[in-house]
């Protein structure tokens, strides 16, 4: 009983926080999603599935999110893995810390400012202007899905690099020698030893980036210019502009359910891949 009391004290702050900031709002959103929009906006209590029936109206936002979030995750993984590999395995310890700090440095500036920088780089006077100089005219980059993809990969790359770096850094380098000793070429050693043992880092990185991308709204707003919008942008619009709280709640609930299903399936897959190892960090 006393044990229970102590654990209660330890868990109370986080528990209360989760209850007030997550569970209660979710309950409210869940209830609102069955309601109706008031004449002047907001919420009027009701019990109807009308909002859910209306979901196809926001199909484009769902489509963009469900294509660009996984694509962005995969692109970030493909860029982050070689970088993390270099930092953890190849780089001399003398430079490692410096380079790791450089990976974090962008976080010191607001994502808003960094995304605005990309407007210039991808905009008419940036890369398209350079391409025009070598004769490739009329390239449009800004306000395209490509621009949004570049923005999200750029923004979330460190979140992918770090978990992979940690798992590669933890990797016992003698295992690589053992593999070589047993007749494996360096390339086969990578596929048979290095990659499987970095699965926990890859899994964590992908999970972090994917979840955050599913809820992203800032980068599509800035680099998509209202043409490439995510579910997040739809929610901002529904709650703050058109003040259709009931429909907004239905959209939000749908996103939450999609994420729950995706993440559950993903974790099942990863734990099978990792052979039920208990060291899949952050999960």
């Amino acid at each position: 009983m006393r044990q229970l009391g102590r654990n209660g004290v330890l868990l109370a702050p986080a528990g209360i926080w989760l209850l007030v900031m997550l569970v209660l709002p979710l309950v409210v959103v869940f209830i609102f999603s069955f309601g109706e929009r008031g004449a002047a906006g907001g919420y009027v209590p009701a019990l109807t599935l009308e909002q859910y029936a209306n979901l196809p109206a926001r199909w484009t936002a769902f489509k963009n999110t469900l294509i660009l979030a996984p694509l962005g995750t995969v692109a970030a993984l493909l860029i982050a893995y070689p970088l993390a590999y270099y930092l953890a395995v190849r780089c001399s310890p003398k430079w490692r810390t410096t380079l790791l700090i450089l990976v974090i440095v962008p976080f010191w500036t607001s994502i808003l400012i960094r995304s605005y920088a990309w407007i210039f780089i991808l905009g008419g006077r940036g890369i398209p202007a350079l391409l025009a100089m070598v004769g490739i005219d009329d390239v449009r980059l800004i306000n395209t899905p490509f621009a949004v993809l570049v923005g999200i990969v750029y923004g979330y790359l460190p979140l992918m690099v770090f978990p992979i770096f940690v798992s590669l850094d933890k990797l016992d380098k003698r295992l690589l020698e053992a593999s070589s000793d047993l007749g494996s070429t360096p390339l086969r050693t990578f596929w048979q030893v290095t990659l499987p043992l970095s699965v926990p880092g890859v899994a964590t990185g992908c999970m972090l980036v994917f979840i955050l991308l599913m809820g992203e709204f800032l980068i599509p707003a800035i680099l998509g210019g209202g043409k490439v919008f995510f579910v997040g942008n739809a929610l901002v619009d529904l709650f703050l502009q058109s003040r259709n709280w009931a429909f907004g709640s239905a959209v939000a609930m749908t996103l939450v359910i999609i994420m729950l299903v995706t993440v559950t399936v993903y974790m099942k897959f990863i734990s099978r891949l990792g052979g039920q190892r208990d060291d899949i960090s952050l999960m």
Partner: protein
Amino acid sequence: MSAAVRTIAEFRGLTKTFGPVVAASDLNLSIAEGEFLSFLGPSGCGKTTALRMLAGFEAPTEGEVLLDGEVVNHVAAHNRPVNMVFQHYALFPHLSVFDNIAYGLRQRRPRPDRATVKEKVEKVLEIVRLEGFGPRRIWEMSGGQQQRVALARAIVNEPKILLLDEPMAALDRKLRKEMQIELQDLQRRLGITFVLVTHDQEEALSMSDRICVMNGGRIVQVGTPRELYDNPRSRYVAGFVGTSNFFDAVVAEAGPDDVAARLAGGQQVRGKPGFAVKTGQEVCVSIRPEQIALSRDAPEAGAAEPVSILNRIFLGEHTEYLVRSQSLGDILVLVPRQSELNAGTFNVGEEAFVSWDETALLILEQ
């Protein structure tokens, strides 16, 4: 060893430097097919570097490594017909016991078929007495079992040489003894050349056909355990292979088999030289603790030194005495249980005499 024995590996003037550090210097050694050779020395003596150059993990700075008569300096580790049992085993944590052992077989091109792999893996599992453990995960295995898996993973490839890098360092004393016997037995049954690296003299003495004693990156002496124990060349070897008492001395009269030396206390002793000595040279006189007799009364024949007992440690089959002599300093004496039962134990503070046979004295390099 008979003259017909083939040389399987050879070091010729092998040197390895890491920046300013000379890890191994001018190593010359040939390893005979089927022998059990140990590199013995303290940490940092270059024994691991020597082994890693044989395995192909380090490229020599100078000199040559030969395997089966061919220079292999530029042959990568994965192309050398040798396998290693690593110090902390380096087993693959993501693979089962079976897959760990099958790893080497599966790297071969053309790849052996499933049935062959299964048959070979099951055969070595039997050899290391781990039948039925194939599907287990590595972390489900105890330290001793992991060691057997590491051994199985190496020998399944039928290497020309099996390299063992302090393979028993992580095992407790009792398990280590068992594994030593098992390894020796395994080596005889398989007929594979074993090259062991160890800092444990007992391990080297009990298992090896030959021991290569190293110090400061150099080979100090190579020989059978008995040769090294009975005829060490230098004070270093005598101190590393077993324990010994050392006294500084100057050579009074040098002969090829018999040397007279004057101890610091003025006594003249005769002994067998471990190296080519010259008259007037400063040397070291060595005598093993078990070759010294401890008695209450001075023996009738031969020289004896009066001593007082400083310390007594009961070791079971032996009792170790530390005694002090006015002229020679502190001396370690090992008295077997039986002679102690006959003569009774000596107490700390008691006066006694130590004596020895002249044939037991060795004249060694400082």
